[in-house]
C-alpha cells in the first residue's frame, strides 16, 4: 500500500457540516466497514486507498489501466477547526462535498462550503461531487432528492445519495470524482502538448474546447 508502485497520486478531500458522515463515508470507502459511533474528527485526517482506474478513451473502447493511489482527506466539520481545514483545501484535486439528507441545515450550508471551496481550492472550479449521505434513513429525511439535484445542477456537479451504513453509492461517488479529475488531467496535459505534437488528433481538440469551457487555466 505504501510502496511507490502506482501511476498517480490523487488527493481527494471530504468536506461538509459536522456530523454529516464524512469520516464514516471514507471509512466505508477505504475499509468497507461502518462505525455508527460518532467520533468527531480532530481537525484533519486522511486515509489512503489504492484503486485501479480504467480510462475509456473518447474513441476507443479499450481503456488503459492506471494504478491510482488515493489520499482521502477527512476534515472536521466543526467551525472551530475551520481555518485549519480550509488550509488543506488547496491540497486536494477533487472534493466530496457532503451533507446529511436528514438535516436541512447541513444542506443549506452546502452553499457556504462551495464558496469556501472556490476561495481555498487550487482553482475556482475544482472537481466536486455533491453527496447526500445517510440515505438509509428515509423516515428522517429532510432533504428531497429533487432539491438536492437542483442544487447540484446549479453548480453543474454530479449528485449522489449515499449511505455509509449500507455502502450504497459510496464507491460510485468517489469513482465519479476520480473520473472527473482524470479527465481534467488529460485535458490539461493534452492542452500543453498540442502545440508540440503537430497532430493532436481531432478528439484532442474537442478536449481542448471542453477544457476551455471549464476555464481550466493550465
Amino acid at each position, binding site marked *: 500500500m505504501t510502496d*511507490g508502485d502506482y501511476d498517480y497520486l490523487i488527493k481527494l478531500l471530504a468536506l461538509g457540516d459536522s456530523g454529516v458522515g464524512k469520516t464514516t463515508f471514507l471509512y466505508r470507502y477505504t475499509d468497507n466497514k461502518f462505525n455508527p459511533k460518532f467520533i468527531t474528527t480532530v*481537525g484533519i485526517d486522511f486515509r489512503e486507498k489504492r484503486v485501479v482506474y480504467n480510462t475509456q*478513451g473518447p474513441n476507443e473502447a479499450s481503456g488503459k489501466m492506471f494504478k491510482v493511489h488515493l489520499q482521502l482527506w477527512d476534515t472536521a466539520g466543526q467551525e472551530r477547526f475551520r481555518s485549519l481545514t480550509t488550509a488543506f483545501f*488547496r491540497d486536494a484535486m477533487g472534493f466530496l462535498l457532503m451533507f446529511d439528507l436528514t438535516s436541512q441545515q447541513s444542506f443549506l450550508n452546502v452553499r457556504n462550503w462551495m464558496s469556501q471551496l472556490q476561495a*481555498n481550492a487550487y482553482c475556482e472550479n475544482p472537481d466536486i461531487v455533491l453527496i447526500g449521505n445517510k440515505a438509509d434513513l428515509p423516515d428522517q429525511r429532510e432533504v428531497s432528492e429533487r432539491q438536492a439535484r437542483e442544487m447540484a445542477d446549479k453548480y453543474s456537479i454530479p449528485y449522489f445519495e449515499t449511505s455509509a451504513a449500507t455502502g450504497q453509492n459510496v464507491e460510485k461517488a468517489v469513482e465519479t470524482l476520480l473520473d472527473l479529475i482524470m479527465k481534467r488531467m488529460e485535458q490539461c496535459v493534452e492542452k500543453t*502538448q498540442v502545440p508540440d505534437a503537430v497532430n493532436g488528433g481531432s478528439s484532442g481538440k474537442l478536449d481542448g474546447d471542453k477544457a476551455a469551457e471549464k476555464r*481550466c487555466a493550465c
Partner: protein
Amino acid sequence: MGKKLDLSKLTDEEAQHVWEVVQRDLELRRREEERLEELKGRIKKGSPQRELASDGAHLSETRCAHCLQPYRLLAAPRRQCLDCRLFACPGCSHARPGGGWLCHPCHLARVLERGSLEWFYGHVRARFKRFGSAKVVRSLSARQRPGAGPSDRVQSSPSAHGGPEPGPGDGSGDGEQRDTDGELDPAAQAPPLSSKHPPCSPGARGVWPCPSPDPASPPAQPAPSRGKRLLPIHSRDFEAEADSDDSAGPGSRPPSPSSAPEALDSLQVPWPQALTGEPRPEEAGAGGSGDHSHAEAQTDHLWPARRGSPAELCPPGASRAAALGAAASPGARVAGSGQPPAPHPADEDPSDDEESSRALGAASRRPASESQRPGAREPTDADAEEETLKRKLEELTGNVSDPGGSSGEEAEREGAEPGRSTALERPPRTTPEVSTSVGQAHSWEEGPPRPQDPTQTTRTPNQALSELEGRVALTASEVQQAESEVSDIEARIAALRASGLTVRPWGKARRRSKLPVLLPRPARTPGPSPEHPPAGPADQVKVTAAPRLLGRGLGNSPGGRGEDGQPFDRKSAYRGSLTQRSPDGRRGAAPRSFAKPVMIHQP
C-alpha cells in the same frame, strides 16, 4: 502565510494529532517524490538506442528506434511517434486514445508529466504560497515555542540551525533534516504575520513557495528573509514533485526547506544587526553596505546547496569559505564597530565548528544577535505600528472583500506587507532581493576576491547612481500605473455618484504624496562606499539591481517597494492580489470588488 492560521485554540492533544497527520502527509509526499525520481530515471535510460536511430536516418527508416528490430510490413509495421517523430515498432509504441502513437519513452514522459500532476501543483503554486501541511507545520511549531518574542526568535534560529545546516552541495533533505526542518524553518519564520509578496508569484513557478514572505518574521527583518527565501525553498521544498534534478535526489522530500531556510536563517540574522546598528548616524550608511556583504555571503552560501554542484562553479571548501569570510567579516565589523565582537555565548551556536564556512557564517551572526539584544525594543515598536496598520487595513479590506474566509486570506496576507514595509528596514529590503536573485551569478564568478577588491569600490558610486536612476524611473512608472488605477477607481466612484450613491473616497491624496521618499534612502548607500570596504559588495549588488527589478515587472513590485507610507502600500497590495489572481480570477473582476465598499458606505 496567507490566512493567518490560528491554532491557538487547539488543545495540546489536538495539536499533537494534527501534527501527526501532517507528518504522515509529508511522508506521503516524500514517497511521491521518490517515485517520480525513479520514473525520470527510467525515461533517461531509453535514450542510447534512440540516439543511434535518430542519427542514422536510414536506420530509423528500417528499424524500430527503440528495440532496433527491423520492421515487417504486416507483422511489425512502423509507427511514428507523435512527440519525437521517430518511428517505432508496435512493441515499442502506445496507442493514443485520440489516435496516433507514442513511442515508449515519449509515452513515459507523458506519464511522468501527468503523474507529476503539474497541472495541479502549478495551480496551487500560483494561488498559494505553500501547501496545507507546510502551512500547518509552520503554525504548529510556532505554537510550540510560545513566548518567543521576535528577537528571541532571531537569536534562537541560528543555534537551531547550526546542526542541520547543509554543507555545500550536499543532497539536503535526508531523513534527519526533514524531521527537523519542519520545526526549524517555522521557528525562524514563525511570526504569524505574513507579508506576502504579491509580486513574486504569478506564473513563475520558482516563486511559488516563495515562503520567504510570510515568514515575515519579526518586523526587523522582513525584507531580507523574503528576498532570500525566494531562491532556495522553491527548488527544494515544493518543486520536488515536479522537477528535482537539482541534486536533491530521491532522498529529498517535498517539504524540505531544509538546507535553504537553515542557510537562510543563519544568514538572516545579520540583517537585524545592521538594522539595529543603524540608529547611529555615522553607521547608518555603513550598516547598509554591511548588509549587502551579508547578502552576498548568503548567496554564496545558498547556491551550492541549491544547485548541488558547487564544484563546477567554484573550488569547494576553501575558496568558498574564504569568500564567505571575506564577505561576512565586513558586516561583522560594521555591526561590531560600536561593540567589539568579543565574547559570544558559546551556547548560541553549538555546532559552529562543524564546517569552516559555517563557522564563518556564525561569526558574522554573532554580532548580529548581540546588537539584536539591545535592539529588542525595536520589534515592539514595529509591532505596534504594524498592528495599527493591520487593523486599518483590515477595515479597508473588509470593505472590499468578502468577510468570509475566502478573500480574507489574500487580503490579510498582502495586508501584512504594508505594515511591514513601514518599519524601518526599508533599505535592506530592496537590496537583499536583488542580491539573491541576480547577485548570485556574480558571487560565483567573482565571489572570493570581490569584497576586498578596491577597484570596484572606486568605480561603483557612479554606477550605483545610474542604477538608482533606473530604479527611480521604474518606480515612477509604477507610480503612474498606480495613479491610473486610482483614477480608474475615481471614475467608477463618479459613475456611482452619478447614479445616486454616495461614496467616501479614502486617502487618495496621501497615497500619492508620500511616494518620493523612495529616492533618498537608497541613494545614501553609495556615499560611504569609498571609505568602507563593505561597500564593494553593496555596489555590486546595486549594479545587479536593475535587471532584477526589470525582471519582476511593474505589476509585481508594488507591495514590495512602496517605501511610502501605508496608504500606498495598502492600495498596491490590493492591486497585487488582483493581478496575481488573474489566471483564476479568484478575487473576481474589479467591478465586483468595488461594488461592495459602495454598498457599505451607503448612508
